[in-house]
């Protein structure tokens, strides 16, 4: 297993957002983490990426304990991530944004430039390389976020809602990009709350609910799991009740 998480727990004050989660990510797969809002999938994701230091538990990456290491160590070890709301370096050009990532493996500017150009080409951003990053729209920024992470030459790419907020055509283009990256041999972990997308993309899906894993398996297995249905359905029922209450109140 490339990533082995055991008993990962994350508490904020008295609130337990992630409760003793075990998860394996096999090398070369696309693993999807799904669950309703507030299920703990994003918190767990941030533990994986090193943005949060888990309150308890162990995370091994390629056989090495990484829980509690800094985000920069995660990157150096070969874990790259994107953010749900892109953290674009707006003062820099699109190409320079990618350069920042490329410098992790290439000290010299010329080498980094070459590596970045390759990534820009691959992610379809080559045409905008000289534009200011602030000129990009949401889809462009999300793509740049992926390109930048890719430039760090990771073993595993962690995508945080890379598709949220995109139009249908943009989602298709993004899915193509993710598949393409996957084909080049990079393991992918993706968090999404849009189920349809993840089911078509992922090899294996893990479903979170109330901070725990309630189901794991192939997309087909998971969608057939009554617990998953209940979690999502219960949620929508609850929402309907709320709306009714608001309307009458």
């Amino acid at each position, binding site marked *: 297993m490339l990533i082995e998480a055991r008993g990962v727990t994350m508490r904020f004050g008295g609130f337990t957002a992630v409760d003793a989660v075990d998860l394996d990510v096999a090398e070369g797969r696309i693993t999807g983490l799904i669950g309703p809002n507030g299920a703990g999938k994003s918190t767990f994701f941030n533990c994986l990426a090193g943005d949060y230091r888990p309150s308890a538990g162990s995370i091994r990456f390629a056989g090495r304990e990484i829980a509690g290491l800094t*985000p920069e160590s995660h990157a150096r070890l070969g874990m*790259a991530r994107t953010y749900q709301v892109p953290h674009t*370096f707006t003062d820099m050009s699109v190409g320079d944004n990618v350069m*920042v990532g490329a410098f992790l493996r290439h000290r010299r500017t010329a080498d980094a430039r070459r590596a970045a150009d390759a990534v820009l080409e691959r992610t379809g951003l080559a045409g905008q390389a000289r534009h200011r990053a602030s000129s990009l729209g949401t889809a462009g920024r999300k793509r740049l976020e992926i390109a930048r992470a890719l430039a760090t030459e990771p073993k595993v790419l962690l995508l945080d809602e890379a598709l949220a907020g995109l139009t249908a055509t943009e989602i298709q283009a993004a899915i193509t990009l993710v598949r393409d990256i996957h084909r080049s041999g990079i393991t992918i972990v993706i968090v999404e709350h849009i189920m349809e997308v993840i089911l078509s993309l992922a090899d294996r899906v893990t479903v979170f609910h109330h901070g725990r894993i309630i189901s794991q398996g192939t997309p087909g297995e998971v969608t057939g799991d009554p617990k998953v249905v209940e979690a999502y359905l219960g949620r929508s029922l609850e929402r309907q009740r709320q709306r009714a209450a608001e309307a009458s109140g």
Partner: protein
Amino acid sequence: MARFVLAVAIAIALVFPLVFSGAFYERVAALTLLYAIAASAWNLIGGYAGQVSVGHVVFFGCGAYGAAVAYSEWGLPPIAGLPLGVGAAVLLAALVGVPTLRLSGHYFTMATVALAELIRILVGNVPVLGAAVGLMGPAVPRSVWDLSFTSSLPYYYLFLAVLAGLLLFTWWMERSRMGFYLRAIKGSERAARSLGIPVGRYKLYALMLSAGFTAVAGALYLVMVGFVDPDSGVGILLSVKMLIMAALGGAGTLFGPLIGALILVPLEEISNSLLGGQGSGVTFVVYGGIILLIAVFQPGGILAMVAGWWRKS
């Protein structure tokens, strides 16, 4: 085109004082370059890395006092104190950088203000540093190494050389990994870390470099002016001036601080010469008013405005 402009600028800088002479104007030109050095040094941490320090004057003071102490304690030419001043500044930067660079945004800025004020008060009570009275350089030059000249021209060329060196270094840094990393840190520390940048360490490097160059400016100041006391050497106003010059020209750009200095120093010296004698305060009404107008109409600095025209044409 850009290269042509640069070549012309360098040519003008070299021959300017020979053509357009007058002792006072030569001095204004030399002072402009001196402040450009300080502001460009500030720019390394404040502009590129986006860590807005309003305490940089303590590094300037390290340089100025280092040079003064070399003379007052050991009878050396002041410039011999340059390594001492730079060393002290870099060391101080390392010491204060570790705790303060963790702070975000305005809290970092306020911490630097507090540190600078704290050090100013302490300096005023240290006898070796001349306490409140201050320290002076050699009143009458003993040898050419005292670098004490009647004309400002030698200073002009000395400062020009130092500034050129600093800008060359900055130019190189801008294109190296460090430059990219600093700008990434300015953009988003969180994203920078996720891309494998050891943010704390790079900020500290930037602060130490910036402190070292600021100390060079301080030492050169003492060599030229020949006197330093707590207010002129460690007073908060100088920190603000460095920041204002960089911001006015364009913080985080290679030539921004120089352009800011080219505007502000002559403006200050000449408005003081024309209006200061009235004693009515009009000098600063004009000076403050112009800064205000530039900020309101060109928040990104003069260079952003020029870049805008450039793109349009």
